[in-house]
């Protein structure tokens, strides 16, 4: 079942990447990043059957980073929304010349 789990992880990661590239809503892009993190977690758990339990320990760390990233990222999104009343990436062009 480990090759199947790795293939599923690759497919989920690809879907997440395509989501990041096709969407313009900043919150949805953040959720796509979470999907990519989840796909990598599945790889860790699947390979932990072959290499020992360290992979599962690493998943705990990845989840911590994901939680921290979600908190800070959403705070940034709220700040951007206060600035421009939009979370559409089309309207976030402060650095555009």
């Amino acid at each position, binding site marked *: *079942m480990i*090759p*199947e*789990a790795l293939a*599923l992880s*690759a*497919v*989920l990661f*690809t*879907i*997440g*990447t*395509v*989501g990041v*590239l*096709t*969407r*313009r*809503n900043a*919150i*949805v892009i*953040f*959720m796509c990043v*979470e*999907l990519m993190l*989840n796909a990598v*977690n*599945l790889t860790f*758990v*699947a*390979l*932990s*059957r*072959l*290499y*020992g*339990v*360290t992979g*599962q*320990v690493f*998943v*705990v*760390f990845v*989840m*911590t*980073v*994901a*939680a*921290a*990233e*979600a*908190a*800070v990222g*959403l*705070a940034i*999104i*709220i*700040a951007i929304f*206060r600035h421009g009343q939009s*979370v559409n990436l089309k309207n976030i062009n402060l650095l555009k010349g």
Partner: protein
Amino acid sequence: MPAAPGLFYQVHFYLFGLLAIASALAFVTRKSPISAALWLVSVMFNLAALYVMLGAHFIGAIQVLVYAGAIMVVFLFVVMLLNLGHADELSDIRGKWGRLAAGGIGIALLAQVMVLARTRFMPSLQPPTNPVFGGALDLGAVNNVAKPLFTEHLLAFELTSILLLAAIVGAVVLGRRKGVA
């Protein structure tokens, strides 16, 4: 997981895997952020089931608690706070060229997996043939993860608390209104 997984195991593994892929596809194609978030919760529940089937019971439990329970609730909370729940008349999905580029990159990523699956690695990189970790049965669901976490990886675990503190402070500072002390 026994050495040769039974039909019951296989059917459920594929069922949860296909449900995860279907939910992920529904997630990236929904216009409304709320339905996208709920489809993502569905992906996470299916992944939690897969973690349990792979012997990682504790990881499956905290997947439901932390990801589906906490992180996604924060996402939904922000969507409602900013009143973004209704899909815009103008879809937020990029135009033809953006979609073509994303499709090309997606196909390239999947092609890399196909190539990797056919590549022969040198012996030192090949995975061991028989699993060293038999799942949660040998030590118990939590003890399995807790033992290495609090012995080998104790320093990383303690550093994580600094990361969380920095994230809390950062979120509060960023989310504060201008002019409020």
